[in-house]
């Protein structure tokens, strides 16, 4: 990972978690773990984000927000569910207002389990997400090229 030419910008959204995973997500940006050495930037703007980090389960109130944030992100994009709540609903699974994990609303690519997920695990998840992002970028470029060809023919 030492000299990768990548620039993953994160959008971090807290569903209905206990905040434990959020603190760990921010911890992975601190001097001890320093996710910025991989070019990771924590942006609050879905328009500029590449990787959607979601912590906590999805409930009836925030399902539209999660979906909207996902839709606002330009392609190519990758979704990472951090913590067991975002993966399956976790300890809150049987609550009357919880729909379940993030994948009940949006397609999730990478699951990072843990309660709370450790910074090492989160960074590992991000690194995997970056690889997937790279692959999606190639597919996206290919698609754009094909579209251009198609419009020329038409």
């Amino acid at each position: 990972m030492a000299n990768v030419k990548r620039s993953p910008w994160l959008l971090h959204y807290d569903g209905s978690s206990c905040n434990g995973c959020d603190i760990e997500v921010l911890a992975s940006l601190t001097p001890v773990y320093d996710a910025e050495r991989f070019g990771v930037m924590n942006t609050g703007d879905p328009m500029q984000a590449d990787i959607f980090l979601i912590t906590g389960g999805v409930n009836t109130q925030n399902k539209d927000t999660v979906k909207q944030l996902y839709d606002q992100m330009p392609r190519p994009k990758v979704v990472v569910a951090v913590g067991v709540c975002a993966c399956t609903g976790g300890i809150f699974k049987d609550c009357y207002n919880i729909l379940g994990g993030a994948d009940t609303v949006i397609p999730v690519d990478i699951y990072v389990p843990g309660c709370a997920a450790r910074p090492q695990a989160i960074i590992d998840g991000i690194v995997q997400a970056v690889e997937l992002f790279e692959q999606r970028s190639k597919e996206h470029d290919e698609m754009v090229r094909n579209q251009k060809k198609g419009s020329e023919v038409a």
Partner: protein
Amino acid sequence: MNMILRVVLYIVLAPIIGGLLEGIDRKISARMQRRVGPPILQPFYDVKKLFKKQVIIVSRSQTFGLIPYFFLMVLTGAMFFAGMDILMCFFVMSTAATALYFAAMVTSSPYATIGANRELIQMMAYEPAVLLTCVGFYLAEGTFNVSEIAASDRTDILFMPGFFVAFVFILTIKMRKSPFDTSTSHHMHQELVKGLTTEMGARNLAIFQVTEWYENVFLMGVVGLYLVNSNPMSIIWAIICIMAVYFLEILIDNTSARMKWQDMMKITWIFTLFTAGVNLLVLMLVK
């Protein structure tokens, strides 16, 4: 011929130097926070990625505002390095900043609108010092012409230290550094999401980024102008001075917290008008 060469060199090299400066900025900032930091070429990776992402357009007129911002900023630097009127350079720069304001305003997003309003307030804060800089150069050299200022025998900073301090002070605002980063909210503070740039994604953000690099190289050129004289050795001193000023900006960025715009206005006006004003009086009396 020499003039054309300088302009071409500026247009070609400014984004490279500007990008490297930003990379060094991020690396030094990381070291100041005891982190490893991203590779120095990271800003280039970012821009390359931004150009490749899907373009989601919030408002078509946003691009219409950004393109003049880009071209006018390139024109500012080109005029400066061609050795034209420094007053005119700063007027064109202000026009470019206004185009950016419109680019943010047309999206009618609340965050971008507040960011744009704050950008206007920032312009109001730094504009007197910018104009005073031009006046200072005129008083010291008797000309507004950059090539004549650069070719004279005097080292301007000896005649206008007050103007220099005022200019370095407003550089913090111009470069959108803490404590004056109210319009874009850099780094982790995101009360305005991304302020001015909230609705800029993909290609538009890349244009904004590259324009900032052009702008920084131009501003650093003005810092250099304070030291450059007819002696070619002075260029080396100018480069050393530019690096020192840039380091100082990074240091200020990393050691200060955000300021309210009211305080920014007060402090900037009082400080720059005082330092530049005293210098102005001295220059006028000595003459």
